[in-house]
């Protein structure tokens, strides 16, 4: 996708690169269950704001914050508190 210097919101496809540093499996196809409303949706469909000061992904259903990612020179700070479960399809 092209973040063509436009403002957000983007979607969870934009999280693929930043989260690839942390997850061994491809994450945008994983289903994330919102702790707030209980709906599950692919991470690719999260409503994403950022990248400054960090990336924030919100539930497409209820807008609660599901995750935050901040990258500093020596750390990846990841808050998944809004996600009550993640389901990854594992290649067979």
């Amino acid at each position, binding site marked *: *996708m092209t973040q*063509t210097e436009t*403002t*957000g919101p983007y979607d969870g496809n934009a999280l693929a690169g930043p989260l*690839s540093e942390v997850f061994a499996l491809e994450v*945008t196809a994983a289903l994330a269950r919102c702790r707030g409303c209980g709906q599950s949706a692919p991470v*690719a*469909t999260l409503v994403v704001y950022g990248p400054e000061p960090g990336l924030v992904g919100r539930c497409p259903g209820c807008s609660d914050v599901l995750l935050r990612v901040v990258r500093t020179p020596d750390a990846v700070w990841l808050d998944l508190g809004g996600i009550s479960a993640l389901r990854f399809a594992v290649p067979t």
Partner: protein
Amino acid sequence: MARAAVPGRLRARRAWRPAVLLERRTESPSARTLVLGVDAWAGHLPGQHIDVRLTAEDGYQTARSYSLAAPAAGDRLEITVQRADGGEVSPFLTDELGVGDRVEVRGPLGGWFVWRPADPGPVLLVAGGSGVVPLMAMIRARAGVSRAPFRLIYSVRTPDDRIYAAELRRRAADDGGLDVAYVYTREAPAGGSRPPGRIGADDLVVHGWPPDFEPACYVCGPTPLVEAVAGLLVGWGHHPERIRTERFGGS
């Protein structure tokens, strides 16, 4: 920059890797295709993207995501960059990065907004502006490999803004099973039957697949267009789970 020789499969896909600009092509007044060489590129699926990182002399770094425009061809990757007025990165890539210059890339990225040539069903592609890039990767991957019927609806401001116009015309004629329709939002060609305006339900009905064909739908472009089209498709009766979207941000 010296690099140890490491077999491609052992190299972490999450790492930033050097890339060299091999070739540039003009696609429209504001869009350029960049062909990047990346050692031991292990391939990618149509719809995936790469992140491109630039580092300035003072160490400042910035990165952007760009959809891969074509199937993998050995170590050669293609992205198509649209120059955004006032953008930080896109004008540099379209106007200043020269053949032989180096950037860093990460990828391939994205496992959801992908089409696999083994998928048999019909496919509806709806593009707004530079959103056509990952959909073109799907069209190019389909050629000669899949007979899945494809319909592309491509929304642009004016005819001059079309990217890949000549190739899309050729492919619609030669690939078999590909239909291409344009929706112009600001200025339509003389003699056209549709006045300029945003894509609407009628455009989808005329140029798309009806819900009972159960197509896989891919919608890509500025966020407002993607949300409007996804809503129209669901309203028409397409199942939400058959609709995959990629939003490029505000238009």
